[in-house]
């Protein structure tokens, strides 16, 4: 069941992203492709002169990305490809990188949350509803403000929200608090949360790359 759902979910997500690329092609991305690729790989370090804090933040982001890829591969490979539970060396690798991702997410949450706050320019329709309800006159500033990447913001907060059940479901199962029924339930929560987390992570990464390459 989970295997089927995972395969379908990954296929749909990748399909949607591909569709997005076709419908709304990134023209900038195809100019100077080599330079863009180099830019992509050094995306977060060499683009401009960075402060120590910014370097740290981007290093954490890269590390989180690496952990995300490793955890996704070790977690989903046995399930989707082999059709069995994670075991053997994969579980050792999985359990080794999981706490690193948890730390990275915590650091990123602290460092990036401020940048990812929503404002009314993200939601012009929401602003209009609020104005109608509250009868506050528009100053015109809100709609003029440039959007700072709604998709990235949404996926960022989704990642932060999903990270909680993702981490807690597996950590709590390691304590002698829950019996077999709850163990299985927690494992199920971990699996499905991980699936959604992975999909959101992919979309987030796609949006980040697209945005950065357009700059």
């Amino acid at each position, binding site marked *: 069941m989970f295997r089927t759902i995972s395969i379908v979910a990954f296929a749909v997500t990748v399909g949607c992203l591909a569709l997005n690329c076709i419908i709304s092609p990134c023209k900038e991305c195809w100019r100077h492709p080599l330079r863009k690729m180099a830019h992509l790989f050094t995306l977060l370090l060499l683009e401009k002169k960075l402060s120590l804090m910014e370097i740290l933040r981007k290093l954490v982001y890269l590390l989180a990305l690496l952990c995300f890829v490793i955890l996704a591969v070790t977690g989903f490979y046995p399930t989707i490809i082999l059709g069995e*539970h994670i*075991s*053997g*060396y994969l*579980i*050792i690798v999985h*359990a*080794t990188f*999981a*706490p690193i991702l*948890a*730390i990275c*997410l*915590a650091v990123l*949450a*602290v460092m990036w*949350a401020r940048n990812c*706050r*929503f404002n009314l320019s993200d939601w012009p329709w929401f602003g209009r509803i*609020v104005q109608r309800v*509250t*009868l*506050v006159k528009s100053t015109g500033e809100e709609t003029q403000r440039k959007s700072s990447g709604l998709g990235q913001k949404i996926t960022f907060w989704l990642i*932060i*929200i999903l*990270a*909680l059940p993702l*981490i*807690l479901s*597996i*950590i709590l*199962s*390691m*304590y*002698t*608090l*829950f*019996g*077999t029924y709850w*163990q*299985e339930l927690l*494992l199920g929560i971990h699996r499905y949360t991980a699936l959604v987390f992975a999909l959101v992570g992919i979309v987030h990464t796609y949006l980040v790359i697209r945005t950065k390459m357009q700059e």
Partner: protein
Amino acid sequence: MLVLCLSAPIACLANEAIVAETDQKLLGDESDGSRAPSIHLIPLFAENEDGEKGGKITPDDDPLLPFSTRWTCGECHSYGIIGKGWHFNAADPNVTPGRPGQPWILADARTGIQIPLSYRPWPGTFKPEQVGFTAREFTRYFGRHTPGGAAGELETQDPDEIMRSYISGKLEINCLSCHNAEFAHNQGEYFPQLVRENFRWAAAATCEFASVSGSARDMIENYPTYDPFMPEPPEDAKKVPPTITYRKTAFDQDNNVSFNIVREVPNYRCYFCHSNLYIDKEDTEKWTSDEDIHLTAGLKCVDCHRNGVDHNITRGYEGEASVSTNPLVTTSSCESCHLGVKDSSLPVAGRLGAPVPKHPGIPPVHFEKLTCTACHSGPWPSEKTILTKTSRAHRLGTLNANKSKEALPHIVAPVFAKQAGIGAEYIGKLLLMEAGKIAPHKMIWPAYWATVENQNVAPIAFATVTEVIVPVFADVNRPTSGDWPELTAEHIVKGLKALAKSVKGTPVYISAGKLYKLDDSGTLSEEEHPSARPYLWPIAHDVRPAAQSLGIRYCTDCHATDGPFFFGDITVDSPIVAARETKKMIEFQDINPFYAWAFAFSFVFRPWMKIIALCSSAILAGVLLLYTLKMLACIAKVLTERD
């Protein structure tokens, strides 16, 4: 009519009348529903010289014959149907062997032999005929811890054996060995009777109102024409023919006797053949250890191990349903009693008051990889396996049983190993059904003399080995404890050279997982060989309380870099001193040792991982809370601006 035949050329299951069954049910084959015990005030019947039902026995008969269970108990219970039950059908090649069980072990310190035998085709065991044992000899050696039947009733076409059988009789199913609740029933008496080949008298000799003296074996060897139905005093006064004496007061005015027969077999009857003694401490007296938790809780063995008149008893292992026709088999395993049966139309969990286990903190993957017994049964694993004695292997409960801890055979336990498959079908070759889970086992390292022809290793007949090897090892010091003698390579060379003169093919010695043979230059060489692999059978009992199960303290009960579950030492047992070494449990678990070590090592960091993950979660939750509050504040501000 169903005739069960052995693959052996001369043997065929006894008395066709036994297996000739009709649809007609006898009085005791089916209950009327009353749970009250049936009173057995019954006449005794002997078997006559034609193997048919004889006359009713009275204490004044001359000659006084032993009662026959076939004709006495068989009056009301279908003997032929009972004879197909698990305890009696080992010699039937058509019976599915199921999960490997405890073999009979032929052990002899004089010749350096301990070899697992079984009529059931469990891989790793040898058929009794492979060591030259006729059914009669097998019965004489091992019938002591059986409830009769099986090999004891096999017929032969060998005229000499037929004559012997006429004098000794057959070893009928001894119903009393299990169902006689009378405390004065002495099952230990079975052993001396079988040694004397008093097969016909053995069952009666164990009961509380009869005693048997004399020896059919003496008659067979000295007076081959002796007729037990018309006995004449032997010329040699020292040779006493088998004679039975009944306690006269046991007979009532109608010459009926009262048996205290119970349907639900008392535990102490099961214990006669199924006792285990784990030599895990200095003092192994019974009072220093507990029984199985189920018995302590008030259950009886037969509460779980049940059968109907067919005596097709449930063995209780996972997967038994695929090889058993017992209708209760699906609800008689650990899992089905404690957890219920999936897809059952009615709830069956909690039978017999079985608590539903919570298994807090145990990841469900453990239930896919381990049997229930892995954590709950047998002795707690220690750095090294311990020696174990069992009723059947060490003749426990019989006269002059060797009480020494080192007595042969050497069974080591607990060995945590991946289970061999369940023997599902035997058609020339055993078809094994994957079992796959890790379970605690008892293990025996076979040691025997054999010949090799075309890469096939065949044990040499025990009689030949005794005849050749005993004189060769005459100068070897044998411990009085019954332990192995301390053999050297030189002894093995001598033994092999001596055997080369007496047997066809190349003689070899199997021990400690290796095959020893002489090369062309006469030097002893050794090699790993499949025929030398140890034989393992799963431990089911004694079940420990939940509070003493593996993992109760922490994961490191098993997942430690030096944890005995994976890295405990298994004694490699051998009479050859130089071959005595150890192997690790993990070698029998089909798991990469480095992986097991690395996984166990990761548990060193497990507490750190938990702390990191919990702290990270707290920070994430804090950020979410903070920005949720900010969002609410923002909304509140907008609403306030309206006012």
